């Protein structure tokens, strides 16, 4: 009996040690990568043409899906809010509920989740494929730094694009929420915006865009880090992309949970 307990304990300790090692590896590699991206930006070693190309790919091409997602968010928020407060609160409060929900929470978070699926997964799969097919090694072999050519442009592009996308999502979400309130509750635009103004703080917009900016940094950094760690052929690319999406989604939710105590107190 004693040897079995000893074996089980040994396995637990070994697993714990191994997981801690992997965690430390991730943290160390992420730290070095972020530092190198910073150095590449400061030394102006990031090709501007590639930044613009990435802004088009990750930003402009994401507008349609972000608009659709934000439009639906506005409709759902408006309808659920209306259902809950129909008999308890004056309807003009709906304006505030929709605007504040979309700007503080739904706009940034759901846009980030959409971008994780559309852009983050793409970055991990793209760089992962380059890693397993030795294209990353080939870049090093010809004296080019993948951090300068591949990583930094993607991070900069998403840092710039994400606040713009969230601003678009905020506007679309509010407008669809307003129209939805008009059709389902008979709440006119004037009343809707009267309610919205009652509880409006200009700081809320800054909060929304700041959140977007932080998401815009976190998503590409995790996606690139995971892509450059890929090994094991096509199966490895699939596995790493899935892990990357899970990490990015969890990170978005954790950052989102940290925002109110840090910035809304």
């Amino acid at each position, binding site marked *: 009996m004693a040897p079995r307990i000893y074996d089980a304990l040994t396995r637990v300790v070994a697993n714990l040690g191994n997981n801690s090692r992997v965690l430390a590896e991730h943290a160390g590699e992420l730290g070095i990568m972020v530092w190198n991206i910073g150095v590449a930006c400061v030394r102006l070693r990031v090709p501007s043409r590639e930044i613009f190309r990435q802004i088009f790919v990750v930003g402009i091409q994401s507008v349609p899906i972000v608009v659709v997602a934000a439009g639906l968010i506005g409709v759902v928020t408006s309808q659920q809010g209306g259902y809950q407060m129909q008999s308890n609160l004056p309807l003009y409060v709906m304006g505030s509920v929709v605007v504040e929900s979309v700007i503080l929470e739904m706009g940034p978070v759901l846009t980030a989740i959409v971008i994780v699926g559309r852009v983050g997964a793409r970055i991990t799969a793209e760089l992962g494929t*380059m890693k397993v*097919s*030795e*294209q990353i*090694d*080939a*870049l*090093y*072999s*010809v*004296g*080019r730094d993948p951090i300068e050519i591949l990583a930094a442009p993607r991070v900069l592009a998403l840092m710039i694009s994400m606040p713009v996308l969230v601003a678009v999502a905020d506007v679309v979400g509010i407008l669809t929420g307003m129209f939805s309130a008009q059709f389902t509750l008979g709440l006119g635009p004037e009343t809707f915006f009267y309610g919205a103004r009652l509880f409006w703080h200009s700081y809320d917009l800054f909060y929304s865009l700041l959140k977007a900016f932080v998401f815009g940094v976190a998503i590409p950094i995790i996606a690139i880090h995971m892509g450059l760690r890929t090994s094991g052929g096509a199966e490895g690319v699939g596995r790493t992309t899935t892990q990357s999406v899970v990490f990015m989604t969890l990170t978005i939710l954790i950052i989102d949970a940290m925002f109110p105590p840090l910035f809304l107190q």
Partner: protein
Amino acid sequence: MSRHSNGSEPVIEYLDVFKAFDTPVLSGVNLSVQKGEMFAIFGPSGTGKSVLLKTTMALIIPDRGDVRVAGDSVYFGGRRSLEKIRDNIGYVFQYAALFDSLTVFENVKMGISENILRDMSRIDVERQAWESLELVNLEPGQVLGKLPAELSGGMKKRVGIARAIAGRPEILLWDEPTTGLDPVNTAAIERLIRRLSHELDTTSLLVTHDVEGGLDMCDRVAMLEGGKIRFSGTPEAFNMSDDPVVRAFADRAAAIAALDVLEVR
């Protein structure tokens, strides 16, 4: 004495190189390649031949030991020294590792160091890419504008070679240059390796499983087994070796080569 060596000056030196992944792969490799010679490293699959080759330009970093290229330390010489070493080496990858999103011209152009590119006119760059493709027996006019996906396996390999020689390096590293090719293409690539090494006056280090071809082409050969150099010497000495491990490997390789020839017939 090598067939076309300029003396006995070591140009690549592996000094007590250790590398382990989950298990040890290289366990203290000591080897030197002389200027101007063609050197082949044989060994069974998984013995770390490609890992050793990649340590030459820090594509894989050893756990211990050092590699010197033309007297400069790869690992203790600093960033500038490594850049200089990489500029001086052309690396031919096992599966070409062409950049998917770039045309053949852009791929070959990547082989020219950024420092040299800065001082070259566009016409000079095009001429150099054109000449590199001609050297590997490709028709530049037909392939320059194509993407790698539009090329056959043999053509991709040749473009990979053209990229490696585009910067006119003094050292060429060949990672399994004939892997995945049929015997006819294998013979053609072997002729190409020999011709390029002579015409460009380079030092060539190959890792290959094609023992017959390696013995035929190279001035010296080595066999890697169990993470160490088991044999190092001339092809004649390899054929005469009475080491049972070397003998068994050479006999097995000869049998596989004979089967390949029979298959073609």
